[in-house]
């Protein structure tokens, strides 16, 4: 049974493989081209495990920015992970502490999208499935980076391949909308994105997430009052 769960988790992680593997290659390639020792690239992917954070962090390091500045610059990129964590508190809270620690660490964009959109398995299988999924996604990212460090002199990734990430998010959220037939999240996201674009285009994501959070709070508290 465990094996079939592992296989299920692997199959579930294939969309992440498509977008994380090439991105990992890109990270490995860029990391080596910036002049850092190549063995550090997989270590960064293994321990930091954050696409945008890693790209920004190493670019700033290569530009000679002091470490505190690098940390302060990458910290806002981790804010959305706090929200991911909040939505998975209930699902993960019954797991042992050490396991929850890893699952929390592995709650990146892809794991969040797949675990949130996919069908939730029954209680006893959900636990190995979540671990398997997180491990596979982590594996794709690290493997991509390793391949990138080895092939950095020969590989030129075609431009626009990062659209795989957009396609991944679009497909998973559209699938979720099809399943739930609930359009409210779409309206909330559209209003928040539009406001962010008009008011704070420089901090688009941060602003739109705060705005969406405020709208969700407002709507749920109104619902609560109505009940």
């Amino acid at each position, binding site marked *: 049974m465990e094996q079939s769960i592992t296989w299920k988790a692997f199959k579930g992680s*294939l969309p992440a493989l498509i977008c994380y593997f090439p991105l990992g290659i890109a990270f490995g390639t860029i990391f080596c081209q910036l002049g850092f020792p190549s063995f550090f690239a997989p270590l960064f992917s293994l*321990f930091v495990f954050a696409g945008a954070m890693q790209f920004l962090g190493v670019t700033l390091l290569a530009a000679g920015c002091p470490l505190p500045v690098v940390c302060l610059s*990458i910290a806002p990129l981790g804010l959305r992970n706090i929200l991911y964590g*909040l*939505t998975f508190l209930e699902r993960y809270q019954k797991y042992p502490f050490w396991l929850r620690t890893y699952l929390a660490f592995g709650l990146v964009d892809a794991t969040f999208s797949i675990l949130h959109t996919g069908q939730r398995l029954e209680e006893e299988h959900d636990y190995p499935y979540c671990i398997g999924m997180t491990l596979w996604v982590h594996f794709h990212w690290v493997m991509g980076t390793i391949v990138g460090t080895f092939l950095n002199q020969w590989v030129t990734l075609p431009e626009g391949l990062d659209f795989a990430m*957009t396609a991944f998010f679009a497909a998973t959220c559209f699938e979720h909308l099809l399943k739930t037939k609930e359009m409210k999240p779409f309206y909330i996201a559209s209003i928040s994105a539009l406001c962010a674009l008009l008011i704070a285009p420089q901090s688009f*994501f941060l602003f739109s997430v705060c705005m969406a959070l405020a709208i969700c709070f407002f709507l749920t508290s109104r619902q609560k009052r109505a009940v």
Partner: protein
Amino acid sequence: MMWKALFFMTAVSFAARFLPFLFSKFFTRLKIFDRLSTALPTTLLILLTFYQLKPVVWNEFPHGMPEIGGLLAVIGCQYLFRQTILSMGVGVLAHQLLRNFL
């Protein structure tokens, strides 16, 4: 220097992800989070999709047409076949074709 950078970046990344779990008792006591967890995750996914489109230059040729075409291909394919990987493949292909031939 690189070891230090690795350590501190790991710490930042880990702190952001573990924070909600560290205060999970506090958060789970707040009933509002139960209600938020129904709408917020999907909203975040949609915002991520919009965020990916942010670097697109809309007021210059090709006016984001490859991205729009790619997204339409993803949505159409997902609607018809409900296969995420297939939709992604078709979307990326449509995007690449439009990008190179427009």
